[in-house]
């Protein structure tokens, strides 16, 4: 066989068996059935997409909350031990110790529904029905003084509710440090005086007692 013919055969074979370079499908996986998608497609968006049919009142939510939520979140959603505080903190965001709750900080109510349904109660996730989730959400709204005690939340009125902090989020402006040309970065005699201004607060990092007020990541 001539050199150019065998080269052509090699090229043609490569084109047929090339992987990622070929546009389109690998024909892997199978189509998901509607029932499968419906069962896992549990997310809810701020514009209401994904909200299931259902309703729940503040009173109904109160009852469920005491049974399933208060042990960690407190009877009035005020928080217990180090578990998250869900109500209160209004006007505290500029203070030294901001209290970031549903009423004081969260931008969208849909987040409450989405999160409670997929992740709560802690240790028994995805156990609440749509009605129960609406009810708990209504109770939390009431605990944050955003609806009255007689309020009933449903998929019909959900998207009409706006949380107080919705407009206070901005997009990421980073990099946000003052511009500094690398070529001008000081290497010698950059400071006259250096003093230690702070020392490690927690020298024994894993103490036997459970108290440390200042540091938290949750």
């Amino acid at each position, binding site marked *: 066989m001539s050199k150019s013919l065998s080269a052509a055969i090699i090229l043609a074979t490569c084109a047929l068996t090339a992987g990622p370079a070929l546009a389109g499908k690998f024909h892997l996986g199978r189509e998901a059935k509607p029932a499968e998608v419906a069962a896992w497609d549990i997310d809810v968006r701020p514009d209401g997409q994904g909200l299931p049919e259902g309703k729940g009142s503040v009173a109904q939510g109160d009852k469920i909350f005491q049974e399933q939520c208060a042990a960690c979140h407190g009877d009035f959603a005020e928080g217990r031990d180090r578990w998250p505080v869900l109500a209160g903190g209004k006007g505290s965001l500029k203070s030294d110790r901001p209290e970031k709750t549903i009423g004081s900080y969260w*931008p969208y109510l849909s*987040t409450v529904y989405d999160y409670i349904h997929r992740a709560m109660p802690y240790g028994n*996730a995805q156990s609440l029905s749509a009605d129960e989730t609406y009810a708990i959400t209504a109770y939390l709204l009431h605990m944050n003084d955003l609806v009255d005690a007689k309020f009933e939340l449903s998929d019909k009125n959900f998207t009409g509710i706006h949380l107080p902090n919705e407009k206070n989020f*901005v997009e*990421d402006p980073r990099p946000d440090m003052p511009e500094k040309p690398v070529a001008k970065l000081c290497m010698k*005699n950059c*400071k006259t005086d250096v003093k230690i201004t*702070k020392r490690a607060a927690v020298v024994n990092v894993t103490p036997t007692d459970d108290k440390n007020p200042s540091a938290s*990541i949750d």
Partner: protein
Amino acid sequence: MAQHPPKSSLTRRRFLASAAAGSSALAATSLGVRAAGNPENLPPNVAEASKILGEGVDARPYGTPSEFEKDVVRRHVRWLTASTESSVNFTPIHELDGIITPNGLCFERHHGGIAEIDPADYRLMINGLVDKPLIFTLEDLMRFPRENRIYFLECAANSGMEWRGAQLNGCQFTQGMIHCVQYTGVPLKYILEEAGLKTNAKWLMPEGGDSSGMNRSVPLDKALDDCLVAFRMNGEALRPEQGYPVRLVVPGWEGNMWVKWLRRIEVGDKPWHTREETSKYTDLMENGKSRRFTWVMDCKSVITNPSPQAPITHDKGFTVLTGLAWSGRGTIDRVDITLDGGKNWRTARIDGPSLPMALHRFYYEFDWDGSPLLLQSRAIDSTGYIQPTKDELRSVRGTNSIYHNNGIQTWHVKKGGEVENVEVS
């Protein structure tokens, strides 16, 4: 093959091993090297290990480090969180070298504990704005073309406890929510193209199969750029605590987005504003406004040795200083070191591979005269971004933003070699 040795010499080996362990009342240094072990093993004696047979090749089907390295572990700080299932532990970066984090030492951050998933039950669903919603088994995913990439993964809350001042005394705790491994996985774009993206697709929502149902919004162009659906770390299957059998990889961006135990990806036209990108992982500024979608991890570095958990244990003289640098925007161009709290800087040497969005290892050797030092490192990445001081960060962000603290770390080396976490003027 040699005969099995007589039982008496096996017993003798174990006796001597426990005698050596008994003499370990002396402090361990960072290599687990005690100041003096068993004098019987020192020259001019012939050490026990040079005489007797050790265990055979059947003894350790999955190897683990020497028992003398037992202090090289992840650690958690009990009082940081309400429970251990929604919590974090820390990579022992003060003990490691190179740029690869061993699989068993990669820090963990869970929101609902470690999901235990049988790979036979594993499914990945793709739905939403696609031509056809699809389901893949793990075997299906492994039939796509795959790639290998080394990337760091850093939690946005790394160093979060240090905003107000020097707090925890050890770089494992102050910068240890980070690891770097080689991922093997499928470029996400192949999987999305398999389902067929509709023309109005703009966002993805990956969702975890753990009990937190972790979900985030990922912009489509990032997904198509370099995101992977990964099933290997450093050559072997993902560890359960790192998302076995499948996790998402979002190079250079905050760790929370790298959804573990990935069960579903929904394609949409708007973000979902999930709990982990509203209530959490948003950065509260002094003026009461909050930044959201703060995805990229800024350029950062830290000296890992010397550090509070890795004091200098030798007398003055030739001293090796080492640390790590990384950037979510590219590679690290340069790392500078100061021994005097920022009066004078010298450039460290970066050793080993320099890969985008991966850890870089630097060294600086110097002749220590035994006097107190104020050590700092500052990194410069390939975009020209210079790692800021904590004061520079605080003047822009205040002290309540929790996330994205990439400030310069200062260690105070005292006479005698002890090291303390400090801040300086």
